[in-house]
């Protein structure tokens, strides 16, 4: 699946997810058509319950679609077994979660190195990759620390390093700043932007529009459907901000 010259990286077609219990069925995602190109950074926003996390989880193989198709890098993946998905995630997908999900009894360095090893790197390669990433993300001095001793922002940076350890074709992020204060949010967002500037494709779910507005595209989900897909071209000069900043008096 590597080496596909197509610019299209990810495509879904009429993707749905319905959760059913004894009494009720809830349609969480209702027919989503989505396309993401190589190197693109798209944000998915919407109110809670709009289906944005479910959508992202399906795209990372953490949740099985009820119907529809997912194509990743030219390969149809919606019907893959759990085991095949696990391989796909280890080698080609990076995942960042709201609550970091670091392995608590391993050091920061080992968390990142393990992900590189599982992604197929040799021992030496994995160590080099880990050193490189921790350096880039400003965590070199924390390499031997346990994750629990780090602040939320630092833990999320480790989680980002881990997600990038296998040089993923696609980085998926589920509310990566949802559990961080504003300064830590800013630093994580800046790292995502840098990673994107280096060519990383990112699909990010967020309810924070400050985070969303940093993406190339903002996809608005409502009731499990896409209601808007807005390109966010950066204005060359700051646009006028009437009213927002006017002083009173």
């Amino acid at each position, binding site marked *: 699946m590597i080496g596909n010259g197509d610019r299209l990286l990810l495509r879904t077609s009429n993707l749905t997810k319905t959760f059913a219990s004894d009494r009720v069925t809830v349609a969480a995602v209702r027919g989503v058509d989505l396309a993401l190109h190589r190197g693109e950074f798209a944000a998915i926003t*919407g*109110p809670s319950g709009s289906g944005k996390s479910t959508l992202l989880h399906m795209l990372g193989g953490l949740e099985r679609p009820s119907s529809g198709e997912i194509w990743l890098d030219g390969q149809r993946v919606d019907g893959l077994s759990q085991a095949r998905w696990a391989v796909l995630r280890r080698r080609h997908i990076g995942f960042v979660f709201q609550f970091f999900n670091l392995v608590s009894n391993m050091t920061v360095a080992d968390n990142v190195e393990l992900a590189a090893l599982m992604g197929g790197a040799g021992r030496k390669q994995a160590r080099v990759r880990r050193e490189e990433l921790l350096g880039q993300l400003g965590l070199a001095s924390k390499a031997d620390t346990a994750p629990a001793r780090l602040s939320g922002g630092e833990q999320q940076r480790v989680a980002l390093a881990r997600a990038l350890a296998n040089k993923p074709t696609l980085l998926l992020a589920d509310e990566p700043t949802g559990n961080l204060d*504003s300064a830590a949010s800013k630093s994580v967002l800046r790292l995502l932007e840098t990673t994107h500037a280096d060519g990383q494709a990112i699909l990010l779910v967020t309810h*924070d*529009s*400050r985070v*969303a*507005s*940093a993406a190339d595209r*903002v996809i*608005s989900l*409502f009731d499990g459907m896409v*209601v*808007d897909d*807005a390109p*966010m071209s*950066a*204005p060359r000069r*700051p*646009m*006028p*901000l*009437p009213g*927002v*900043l*006017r*002083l*009173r*008096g």
Partner: protein
Amino acid sequence: MRMPLLALLAKEPAHGYELKSQLEQVFGEAYPTPNIGQIYVTLQRLERDGLVRSQDVVQATRPNKRVYELTDAGREALVGWVDKATEGPRVRDEFFMKLALSHLAGTSDRLGLIIRQRRHYLAQMRSLSELAASADGRIPRLLIEGAMLHLQADLDWLQRCQEELV
């Protein structure tokens, strides 16, 4: 605009251009500084209301400049302004007027209105983020941060409008 000018004049007498550049310096580039014409009009009104007085200062090599200073009444007005609690969240919102009344104008596409407004707010948010990255000093940074938080609230509120009205 009136009160910020009085506040700057409380420090020392100044002419219009000095006030304009002081405003720019304090609030940074995110704040849309009034043009010099607006500043002079405001100063004239303040003078008419007895809050400032002015006199021409003769300059050897340039045209005379008019220097403004605070009067006692001006100082009192300024202190009154500073000491009073400021108006809270706005109830008047032009976008909401459009949304609530659009059907009277024959356009009932509320979702379309909300989507257009959301795009506009997101673009503003992006501009503010870019300004924030280059903002220098605590006051300009806090001004931008406040604007971003207001925008975030406006965007959340758009979502509520969508939930209730569409």
